[in-house]
């Protein structure tokens, strides 16, 4: 069975997906907490909020997350990318050890397998059997 091993750059992309999403969310949350409550009666306040430094940083991190996520999906399976990048949950709350242990185990399980479904090899195997 042939395995698609990831290159160093691809591992870095997956790490960026895992890190940028929770950091971006945290920056947005911190920025929104520093602002006074925004009412739907004044939607323009939301546009002004975009220029708050923490919220701008959060948006930049989330754009970086989405670009890296799309790049990862272009060379790896969805069922590989989602559990692997779930390591980001560990970044936000590192004190709940039961959850961390299970997520880490899940990441380890999937990361040791192939990153892409090998359709051609599977088809060749079926043809050679028949």
């Amino acid at each position: 069975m042939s395995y698609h091993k990831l290159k160093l750059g691809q591992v870095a992309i997956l790490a960026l997906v895992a890190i940028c999403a929770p950091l971006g969310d945290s920056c947005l949350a911190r920025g929104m907490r520093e602002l006074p409550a925004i009412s739907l009666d004044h939607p323009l306040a939301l546009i002004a909020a975009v220029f708050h430094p923490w919220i701008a940083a959060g948006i930049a991190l989330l754009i970086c997350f989405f670009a890296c996520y799309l790049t990862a999906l272009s060379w790896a399976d969805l069922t590989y990318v989602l559990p692997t990048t779930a390591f980001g949950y560990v970044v936000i709350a590192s004190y709940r050890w039961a959850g961390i242990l299970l997520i880490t185990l899940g990441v380890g399980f999937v990361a040791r397998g192939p990153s892409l479904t090998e359709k051609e090899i599977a088809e060749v195997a079926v043809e050679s059997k028949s």
Partner: protein
Amino acid sequence: MMLAVPTLGAVNPWLAAGMIAAVAITSTIGEVLTAAAMKSIGDLDDIRAHSGLKGAIRAVLTCPLFFAGVGFLALAFFALLFALNHLNLSLAAPASASLTLVTNAIAAKLFLKENVDRRRWTAALLVCVGVYLLAH
């Protein structure tokens, strides 16, 4: 001795399950469509090497499947906001996030024809329970 029982607020449990299911379903459709779009486009690293960053961005922005995926992801976001408006945060957020991991694995096997073997099922289930424990 008083025991803390998780509550759904005043919402019917079936309605709560429906809201969480709506988030999981729209999110799964969005993820699968986005993944299918990126597979149809090809390796973005290769495209960027040949056509530069602008070429890679153009390849993504000219794929209709990508916009369908982003549309469903936006729908999932609003479905989550709606659920959070009616349910406790400690129930809605972890339940929908962890359920989405499992439905994604099922949808990826059915529609993307990914080889979801025992290793990936185990990973999805472990992460699913882990996310629930972490966020609950």
